[in-house]
């Protein structure tokens, strides 16, 4: 009799627990915040062709597509000297001297040097600078009054990474 009373007590409790346990499970969806996935410098394995180098450099400096006539000229001159690194360097130096280039006037954006560095890396290297690069460039700008935006642009455009994509 005592055992029967125990069963009568626990049966409703079990039923309640079972019903509660059958509640529909929530679907959790794990997502990541949207990020702009960019190629790091270490994964750039393809050297730009002559035409690619010239057209990209023109676009970076002038913000426009290179006119066909300019492209023909640059291609011809490019072919006329064996040391391509030297000629690319010279082409860059000449482009930097032309009116209409869109190199920023200052090494900061509204007083924000880091913003200038980030914009420059995104523009020229198509990636964000890592923390070390940000620190180095910021320190260079802070410590060296000789550094202008043009100096930084030319230095980065004449460095090896600019030759690759």
């Amino acid at each position, binding site marked *: 009799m005592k055992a029967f009373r125990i069963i009568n007590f626990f049966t409703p409790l079990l039923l309640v627990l079972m019903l509660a346990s059958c509640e529909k499970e929530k679907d959790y969806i794990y997502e990541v915040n949207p990020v702009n996935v960019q190629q790091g*410098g270490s994964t750039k394995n393809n050297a730009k062709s002559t035409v690619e180098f010239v057209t990209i450099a023109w676009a970076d400096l002038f913000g426009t597509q290179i006119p066909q006539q300019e492209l023909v000229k640059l291609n011809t001159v490019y072919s006329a000297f064996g040391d391509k690194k030297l000629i690319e360097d010279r082409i860059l130096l000449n482009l930097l001297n032309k009116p209409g280039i869109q190199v920023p006037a200052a090494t900061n954006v509204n007083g924000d040097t880091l913003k200038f560095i980030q914009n420059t890396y995104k523009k020229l290297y198509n990636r964000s600078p890592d923390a070390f690069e940000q620190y180095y460039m910021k320190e260079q700008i802070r410590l060296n009054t000789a550094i202008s935006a043009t*100096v930084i642009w030319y230095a980065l455009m004449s460095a090896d990474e600019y030759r690759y994509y």
Partner: protein
Amino acid sequence: MDRRHFIRKAGLAAAGAFAAPYLLPGGRLFASSGLRKVNHVVFLLFAGGVRNLESVQFNDGNLMPNMLSGGGTISPDILPAIDFLPPGPLSQPLQNYGTLFRQFRYKEGPTGHYNGHTVAVTGQYVSTDLNIREAPCNPTVFEYYRKHNSPQQTALNSWWVANTLGPYPALNYSSDPGYGPAYGANFISPNFLISQDGFDTLGDPSSFSTAEAAAIRNIRKFANGVFNKSYTDSGQGIVNTESEAQQLQQFISDLYGKAQSGQYINPWGVGTSMNSDMYNVMFAEEIIQQFKPELLVVNMQDVDIGHFDFSQYANNLRKADWAAAHLWSIIQSTPGMANDTVLVIAPEHGRNFSPNTSVDAYGRLALDHTAPTDGTSGDQMAREIFCLIVGPPTVVKQGFVVNSVEGESTEIVPVIANMLGFDNNIPGSAGLKSYNQCDLAQAFY
């Protein structure tokens, strides 16, 4: 000191003297085992297709009076087509300063310009038409020089000067995995580089202060340190060292400066006769005077108008002759190269005996260069060329003429290697003709 010690010390001193490198008057340091005959070689590829009939056989008189003796006056029917040229810069024809091989041969392979150039600078025949977009598969003389000369020299000492673009820029190094751009020559096509387009593109570079230049170097060095590839990995061609690149940049700036100041308007006093061959040689002379290169190859191509106009072919042949003499006069007036340079002159190939159907204003039929590749059948005249080697009287036999069929295009590279003393360092597997087997060796003492 006893006798034994004296002999030992004297022996060691003598051995040291032989083993130690010598510093030559020109400032060049090289091991005494180099066995150089001269310290500079200039190879003038008298190219564009020059037929022996018009050159050394004087079929239309002597069209090359600055290089060749004899031959008589130019045929009167083409004389109106010949531009005025002042007397040449040499007191006697160039052949008097060296040895002329009148029956030199381009023995094998297609008689095309790029094939001919490739054979001339690689020392190897090629049996098929070459892909004009590719570097030669066999090492060039520039690569042999820069790899095997001791001590190794930079590209400032090795130049390839071409008067046209097209496939010719590719001849400064090969695709051979053992050589390649690391041993290539500096290439320049001055007619295109030192032009209005060239000036528009390269003539007005930004300049930076010393402090700015230092900052640029630092930032670039940092950026290159972060990146895991160097420029040379891109396989884009030869790369000079930074200091040499600066010299070259200055050289290019100087050339633009001279062009702007009018120094290249009638530079040789020949007026409107100055053609692109002459300009190309003139710029090669600028390189000679600036860098005193140990090895320089320069070509001419204007005679190739012979496909359409025989009389202008003859006219340009005469200008090429004038330019060759001017080149030698500049070499001989350049301290460091005077009396220490061998000049080799040879066309890449000749032209056919049978003309094509193009008739010029003087009724002459034009000439192609299409010798059958079997080397025996049909019209093989395009294989008949000449070779003239001039140099110091102590090195090159003066006024010597070889009239029989001797020598071939593949001998030029081993002869250059021998002149500069590195021929024995080139491995036999390269397949070059041995200098001792070269008929051209007759030109030297």
